[in-house]
């Protein structure tokens, strides 16, 4: 699935929800069911903290794509993190540098992603873009792709 197709699928899934409870239950399920990160990786090095909830993020460059792992101590944040990963996981640096994440507005989770929320999510998106930029720059500079 391309990144555009993945985003479209998510938006369509969320359009099916009638009310906030359905939306939140879905996110909570994602937060509960999916594995986040192994405990050993939840260190200060990978911590993107907000003051309301904490988010951890790792990124590895592998042969032209980026692999992410992420987690949060709050279930709703973790659920949204998993949603984000569905879109960004395994994408090229170029795709992520160009991604504006506006699809999140269409999902109706804007309130969780406002910078003032300080739940770590806005910082996480910034961090994803930073990783993408770094890896893209490295690719352009040398024979990084091997």
């Amino acid at each position: 699935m391309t990144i555009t197709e993945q985003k479209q699928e998510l938006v369509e899934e969320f359009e099916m929800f009638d009310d906030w409870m359905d939306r939140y239950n879905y996110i909570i399920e994602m937060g509960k069911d999916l594995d986040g990160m192994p405990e050993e990786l939840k260190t200060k090095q990978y911590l993107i903290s907000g003051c309301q909830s904490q988010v951890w993020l790792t990124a590895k460059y592998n042969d032209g794509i980026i692999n992410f792992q992420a987690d949060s101590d709050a279930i709703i944040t973790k659920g949204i993190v998993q949603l984000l990963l569905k879109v960004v996981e395994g994408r090229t640096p170029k795709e992520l540098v160009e991604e504006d994440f506006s699809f999140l507005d269409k999902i109706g989770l804007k309130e969780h992603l406002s910078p003032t929320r300080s739940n770590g999510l806005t910082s996480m998106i910034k961090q994803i873009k930073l990783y993408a930029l770094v890896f893209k720059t490295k690719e352009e500079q040398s024979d990084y792709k091997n």
Partner: protein
Amino acid sequence: MNISKIRQDFPILNKKVRGKSYVYFDNGATSQTPKSVIDRMSYYYENENANVHRGVHYLSQIATDAMEAARERIRKYINASSIEEVIFTKGTTESINLVAHSFGKAFIGEGDEIIVSEMEHHANIVPWQMMCEERGAILKVAKINDDGSLNIDSFKSLLNSNVKLIAIAHTSNVMGIINPIEELIEIAHNENIPILIDGAQAVPHTKVDVQDLDCDFYVFSAHKMYGPMGVGILFGKKEYLEKMPPYQSGGEMIKDVSFEKTTFNELPFKFEAGTPMVADIIGLAEAIDYLEDIGLDKIQDYEHKLLEYGTKKLLEIEELRIIGTNENKASVISFIIDGIHHYDAGSLLDQMGVAVRTGNHCAQPLMKRMNINGTIRASFAFYNTYEEIDILVSAVKKVKEMLL
């Protein structure tokens, strides 16, 4: 007290959020503003607005009279002995910064000690930390008990001849616990140590008499006591304020200015640089009138009943634990639910039409002491109702269902 009539005084309480009624339980963060205060401030801008103190025209006189009448009103309310002791600031945080800076410059040197407590809001910790760093002084911390109350023995054990100032909350913003400040002030004065009381969370619930308390400094904000944001009070005993150098400088706080030498204005103006927030000052005085019309005793009584009811109902929920269990409390309840992150709870409660505050409430050292990373805080005002508490309680039960 007719609560439904009182609620009519607050336009925002009738606002629908996401199409339904909203329960506002975040009064500890800021209180709502009655129409009389909003109207009085509008009236000022529509009829009285001019720059104050130095004008010779009619409007400037009206504005000055209104502002200084407000200052006298506030002086009377807190029973300060003179208006020279009533300083207008931006709020509690600025009041504390002012004292830290100016009292620090006048009285604090290398090796001196400042005492705060484990339960303090960052506003009553960080300014002291920074001042201590700058002046080579040491910050000492009085411990609290497991029930959230101040440990008086720990407090006493910290007092010695190096201590130059104590800064303590009147009421805890997280737990609502009311400290025995009369006792603390007496203990401090027995050792000739001045004491600053952070009254931000106390003044919404009770009337304060600074002469009775005999505190050396008392600070609070208007916006927590039904006044506007942007103004607060520093009360300080004249003997200290006179010896303290100015905090901010510029216009209004000077007497004579030349490049050779500048002299400063007398109290209270010495500490009020620049054009004041006249409308907001008048708003604060109007808020005091509003509160006294209802009666602080009646307010305290009713809020206490809300607190009792809320505590009882919330404790019926299994896995719910209250942080700050000491009985002497204002109408604030901080709680945690085992297995549930406060961010999740707060987000879902908001969707269900209940506004609470979650997280560390600008009291990270307190969170650490209580071994938690945050709480859910419901803070009640005299315009809240038992029915609203019922809504909170059933919302919390629903939150449990969704998350556990």
